[in-house]
Structures are given as C-alpha cells and as structure tokens.
C-alpha cells in the first residue's frame, strides 16, 4: 500500500514539469487585464470594457493623446463644423466603411446607434443630454441639433457611450452584446469570450485603414484580478502588456530585461472629500487645518513611489483649466495647529471617519499615513474600508451622519475640466457626487459661465475656471491627494505604443507592431 502511494506520488511529480507546448504561427498580443468586462453593450458600458470597445468600435472623433498638435482628430467623421451659436453641428462621414456584419456605415447608422444609446439612457449616456435630435441629412452627412451650446465634437470623442454600432446590432438588447456579440467598424472583432476569464479578438480583414506587415492578428485579453499573477505573467513573457500592479513593484520591473514601464500623467486623481455640513468639518478653518495636516510628500514619494504628483486643485496638470499658480496646501502641522486653535479646537480632541474602497490598498494606506499625522495634532482618524456602494450610500443618505472624509477617485467621462468641477462641487439638491456637500452660489455661477463659454472661447473659459477653483481651494472642500499617473508595463519588442489618458488603459492594438 505504501509502495502504491509512493508510486502515485512519484508519477505526479514526474508529470508536473511537463509543460505542454503549442505551435504558434500567429502574431499574438496578450493584454493581462486586471478586471473583468462588466458590460459589453457599447451604449451602456461605462467601465473597463472600454479597452475592448476602443478596438471593436469607433467614435466619430478621436481625442488625441496630450502633447499632440490638435486636441481632436477625425475618425469615423472626416470633418465637422458647428453653427455660430454652437447649437447645430454637422459631421461629414468617412466613405467606404462597413461594419463587421457587412452593413454599410452611413448617416442613418450613426443616427440609429446614438439614438439607441440616448434612449437606453444608462451608463455615460447622460453626456448626450444636450442633443435634441439627430438628422441624417445625406448618405454621409449627419446633423445634430442641441438644446444648449456644448462642445459636441469633444463629447463625441468620449471613451464611453459614443461608440457607433451597426444598425443590426442596434436592434439587439443588452444580453446579445454580453453574449460576446459585437458589430462595429473597428480594426478588431470579438472572436471568443469567456466572461471573467479571457477574450480573444481577431483582426478585421476589411478594416478601412488597411493592414500592413507586423501588425497583430490576434489580441488576447487574459482577465487576471490578481496583480501577483499579472506581474508574473509580464515578467515571464506570458503577457505583453499590463497595468494596476502595486506602485512599489514598478521599480524592479523597469529593470527587468525585455520590459518597459511607461509612465504618463493620467486624467484620474485621488481626492479626499471633506464633509462641509457636519461638525467639526463644517468649519472652513478645520478643513484648512486638515488640508495642512496631510502628509503629501510621504504619500507621493512612498505610497506612489514618486510616480504621481501632488494635486493642485481638482483639475490635473495635463488638462486645460489646471492652474499652476493656484494654492497648494503643504504638510505643515504648525499651521494646522494654529488653524485648529483658531477654529476652537486648540488641542484637536475630535475624531473623524475616513472611508475608502475596501479592496483598495492605496486608499487604505493613504488613510494610515494621514492618521499618523493627524494623531500629532490631537485628531483621531477612524479608517473604514467599505464596498464602494456602501461607502457611497453612507455619504448620500444623510450628510449630517455621513463620514467626514471620503476617499474619492475622479476621472472625466469626456475630456473637459468641467467634469471635475460640476461633477464634484456644484451644488446639488440631493447629494450625488458632490460628497463634500459643497454649496457656494458664487462658485456655481462661475462654473456655469465657464461651461457655456468653453465651446466658443476657451481662453476666457479657462480664466473663469481658475477663479472658481480659487474659491474652492480657499474653502478647502477637499484634500487633493495625488494626480495619478497611468503606468503601463509593455514588452519592449512591441513598438508603436503611446498611452492616451483620454481612453484610460485602452491599447489601440492597430497602432502596434512586433
């Protein structure tokens, strides 16, 4: 019996190292992706599935990576113009484009696709709130009538909700898309989908842009939630691209052979929203004290391994509307103490609740570092990790009993500074994402004025945005923790990669070669 056990054990051990080898004659690019694709419907998906959408579907206009000469470039639309009042927009469409299912791309298709998205009204569809009607003026000319002035060309470049799907697909329901079906105009088509595990894209041979040597035939998304596994995959060459590893691990990775770590500023930042309604953070002085109590340098240099930058107001540095001269709080406990004393809390003596997403180690450690610093001025911080929904529910139900400090990431649905200011700080009747419950009519007016000017006169709008931010910073409605970088690890034998923060973590595989 013992001998039998031994034999079985030995056999198992002998078999174990026999890796299976497979023939490989295709040019395959593997994206080790840290999260599943929750909703593959191009109309309502507004999450990480954008990395698929960006290669299967296309938008009318394309937002260029920061640093480009133009903000937008043509995609499915070759040219466009707006009326004087910004209320009527006409787009001339690209000729000779067909959808994956063979349907012709034309003005009717654009209308049908966007009408579908607007009528479903889920996800990021609200960005089309200004659209009153869409008309197919000609086979390749589509006209949008707006109810209020807005930079529609920018809106139509959004990485969510602005995708154009085939008219046949537009007749389908959400389930059809989530079964792995798709019909866009993009360079790749969904070949297979095992939800939560793997998705495979194949090149669209009829892509209007044409194909050349060295481009990838096959794209594999390996869904791997575990960053440990992702890191091992990219190290061993099992993946060509990944992101979302711990900040501390990028240093060693950059030195690993065959890898390059691409760090670019993103449009995402981390803030701590301070409750402006509840004692003691309802006091502006207390909020200013808290802003001075935050250990910005430790957080940026240690937690983010020096890869991010301290925020200066809500708008990140690579976005127009960012003010390089705006007030930036620093870690200054003496000032914090003085302000607390002025507010009537000479030795601190109160405690605050900071909530963050339970699974987010960065946000948690932000809290831990802040807590240690707050302890020195006599303020106690309770760190509470919650599921995002629970954290949010706590905030919106009753501001008077909500958390005092809310760890909050923001990124724009389409790329405009207005997103940060309106999204988080303009007064709301019922709290929604203004989770500081910040309410300043003067600020509201400024933001509204800037928004309506931005389509016509960007420089003027920028001036107004800066004014608004000055108010916001003086009121210390939030702690601007860090402007986050996009950090992507890619095998260095792949060329053509440029990160475009306008489409977070989307790799436009068509641009790549090996």
């Amino acid at each position, binding site marked *: 019996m013992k001998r039998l056990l031994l034999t079985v054990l030995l056999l198992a051990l002998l*078999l*174990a190292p026999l890796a*299976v080898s497979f023939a490989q004659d295709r040019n395959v690019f593997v994206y080790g992706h840290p999260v599943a694709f929750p909703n593959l419907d191009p109309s309502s998906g*507004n999450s990480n599935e954008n990395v698929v959408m960006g290669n299967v579907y296309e938008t009318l206009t394309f937002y260029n990576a920061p640093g480009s000469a133009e903000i937008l470039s043509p995609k499915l639309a070759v040219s466009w113009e707006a009326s004087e009042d910004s209320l009527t927009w006409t787009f001339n469409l690209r000729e000779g484009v067909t959808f994956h299912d063979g349907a012709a791309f034309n003005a009717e298709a654009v209308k049908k696709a966007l009408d579908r998205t607007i009528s479903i009204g889920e996800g*990021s569809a609200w960005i089309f709130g200004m659209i009153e009607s869409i008309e197919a003026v000609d086979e390749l000319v589509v006209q949008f009538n707006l109810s209020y002035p807005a930079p529609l060309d920018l809106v139509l470049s959004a990485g969510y909700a602005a995708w154009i799907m085939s008219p046949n697909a537009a007749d389908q329901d959400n389930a059809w898309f*989530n079964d792995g079906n798709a019909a866009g105009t993009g360079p790749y088509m969904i070949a297979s989908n*095992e*939800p939560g595990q793997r998705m495979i894209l194949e090149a669209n041979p009829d892509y209007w842009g044409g194909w050349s040597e060295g481009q990838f035939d096959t794209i594999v998304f390996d869904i791997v*939630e575990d960053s440990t596994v992702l890191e091992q995959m990219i190290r061993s060459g099992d993946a060509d691209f990944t992101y979302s590893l711990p900040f501390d691990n990028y240093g060693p990775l950059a030195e690993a052979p065959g890898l390059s770590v691409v760090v670019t500023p993103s449009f995402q930042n981390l803030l701590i929203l301070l409750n402006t309604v509840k004692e003691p953070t309802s006091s502006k002085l207390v909020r200013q004290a808290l802003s001075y109590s935050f250990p910005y340098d430790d957080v940026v240099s240690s937690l983010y391994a020096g890869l991010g930058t301290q925020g200066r107001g809500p708008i990140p540095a690579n976005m127009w509307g960012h003010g390089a001269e705006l007030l930036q709080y620093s870690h200054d406990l003496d000032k914090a103490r003085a302000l607390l004393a002025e507010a009537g809390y000479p030795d601190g003596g109160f405690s605050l609740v900071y909530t963050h997403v339970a699974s987010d180690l960065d946000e948690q450690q932000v809290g831990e570092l802040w807590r240690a610093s707050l302890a020195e001025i006599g303020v106690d911080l309770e760190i509470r990790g919650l599921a995002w929904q629970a954290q949010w529910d706590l905030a919106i139900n009753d501001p008077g009993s909500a958390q005092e400090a809310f760890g909050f990431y923001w990124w724009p649905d389409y790329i405009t500074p207005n997103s940060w200011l309106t999204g988080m700080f303009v007064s709301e009747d019922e709290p929604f994402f203004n989770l500081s419950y910040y309410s300043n009519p003067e600020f509201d007016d400024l933001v509204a004025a800037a928004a309506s000017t931005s389509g016509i006169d960007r420089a003027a709008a920028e001036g107004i945005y800066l004014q608004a931010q000055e108010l916001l910073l003086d009121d210390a409605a939030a702690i601007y923790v860090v402007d986050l970088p996009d950090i992507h690890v890619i095998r260095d034998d792949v060329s053509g990669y440029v990160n475009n923060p306008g489409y977070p973590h989307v790799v436009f595989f068509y641009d790549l070669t090996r």
Partner: protein
Amino acid sequence: MALLSFLLRRLGLSIFVFIGVLILTFIVSRVIPSNPAALYAGARPRPEQVAEIEKKLGLDKPLSEQFRVYVDDLLNGDLGESYHSRRSINTDLSIFLPATLELVIAAVLIALVFGIPIGVLAGAYPRSVFDYATRFVAIAGVSVPSFWLALIAQSIFFSQLGWLPLGSRISRDATLFYPIAAQTGFYLIDAAISGNWKAWLDAARHLILPALVLSAYPLGITIRMTQASMLEVLAEPYVAAARAAGLPRRVILFKLALKNAVMPALTVVGLSFAYSITGAFLVETIFSWPGVGKYVTEAVLNVDFPVIIAVSLVVTLFYILVNLLVDVVQALLDPRVRLV
C-alpha cells in the same frame, strides 16, 4: 421499501432546509445598508437613472412582494441578474459552477484516495511512528490556512521550481490552438471526450496545484475520521474473530475492517465537500480559477446580492445533494439499513 421511505424522509427534510436557506439568504440580502439600484446603474450613475432602475428591479415594492417575485422566478429556474454585471446569473453559473466542481471534486478525490488508506494504516498500527506522523499530518491539514498554503505552493512550484503554472484553468495557448469543445464544462472530461489530449494534459497541470492546496483540509478530516473509526472497528469482536480464524492481516484491514470503517468515514465526503467549497472561495482568487468562489468573492466586494443569494442557493443545493448521496451510498453499503 424501507430504503425508499428513508430516502423520502431525507428528501423532505432537504426541501425544508432548502426553503429555510432561501428565506435566510433573502433576509440577509435585504438588510444591507446599500442601494442595489445604484450598483445596477453602473460606475457613476445619474440620480434619475437610479430611480428608474429601482422601479425596473421592483425594489420599490414591499419586501414580501419582492420575495414572491424572486421565488416565482426561482421556480421557473431563473436565478436573476447580477446587479454589477447585469449578466444572467444562470449563464454565469453555467460557466463558473463546473470550474468549481471540477476543482472541488479533484480535491475531495485526492483527500479520499490518500486519506482513507493512510487513516486505515494509522488505525491499524496505533502508537507506531506512522501513527504519530499521520496524526501530525492530519492536524496540520486541518490547521493550515488554505490561502496561505496557496501562496507558499505557488512560490515553490511556480517561482522556485517552475514545474506548474501559477494559476487559471488552462493555458492561453491551449485555448488558442487546441480549444476544448465545451460539453460539460469540466475541462478534463470535455478534453477527454474529444480526444484533445494536449489540452487535457494542460488542464491537468493547471488543476494539480489548486486541487492539492484545497485538499489539505478534507485530507486532514478524512485521515482523522478514518483512523478513528478504524480504531473503533478494530476493537470490535468480529475483528478479533477474524484474527482468531487466522485470516491474513491484509484481508482483515483492507477488506473486513475497511468496509466497516468506511461507513462513518463516508459522512466525511459531505463534510469534505463543504469545506472544499469554503476553501475554494479563498483559493480560487489566488489561483485565478474562474469558479464560483471567485465569482462570489467579487460579488461580496461589490455587494452584488443577487449573485450572493444565487450562489448560496446553488452551492447549498449541491451540498444537500452530496449529503443525500452519501446517505444513499451508506444505505446501499450497509445491509442493516434496509430493515430500518
């Protein structure tokens, strides 16, 4: 006839238990201080979207009405829709459940195949070095945190030795070049049916590590239970009688005593199954095993309660079925049960 009535009674009890589980999970899911409609609406919903979805999902109706609707759907075999992904939970489970079952069954088989003989020998040679070593192994098995063992195993067999893959069910190349035609969802079975041996071997290599890690707890239980019941059985007069009749030790241990000892040890199968599923919740995440455990752990992080309820129900159903099966096997093995 008696067997039948015994089974009917067990079945009746199981149905009762299942209904209880349903009510309990439903209650737990409705006391959460979270707004499911907001979750359903997506990453950053608008208020009007949330209100509309609340209506669509029937969350504005009284609890009893919601429960009625849920049970109605359930009776039609519909487990509902994930608030987070909006995918049909039936579809999701049809993918994830076979993955978990394959893993759990492999783990339980490992536990039984190794645990029973080891337990028998340990019971047969009490106070031997083997007995002490076995006691240590068994206790270690039930004491080791599975998620930690998984990390250690990855570090040894992947990082140090490079023998086994780090995680997932199958390598990417196998899916690309030797795709397994899905029939049962059990990769080993599907690959074997279609004679796709390269993919089979690949799937087997992926299965070894998580299955071994997962088998630690059931292995420990199996050894302990078998050893204990073996000790008891060996003290029975019929074993003395068999020795007095001069039967060889091998026959006494592995034929006569084992059959008796296996009866109580069989209850272990149900228990093992339960613990393996539990272990799978933690281990699947570490091995990127796309199973129910990983599915439900993510659902927990997202407070996605339709998924949590559905998984509770389905897993409990399997648990109940396994225990029922164990009862039947015991009844079939034991001639005495027929008269009860």
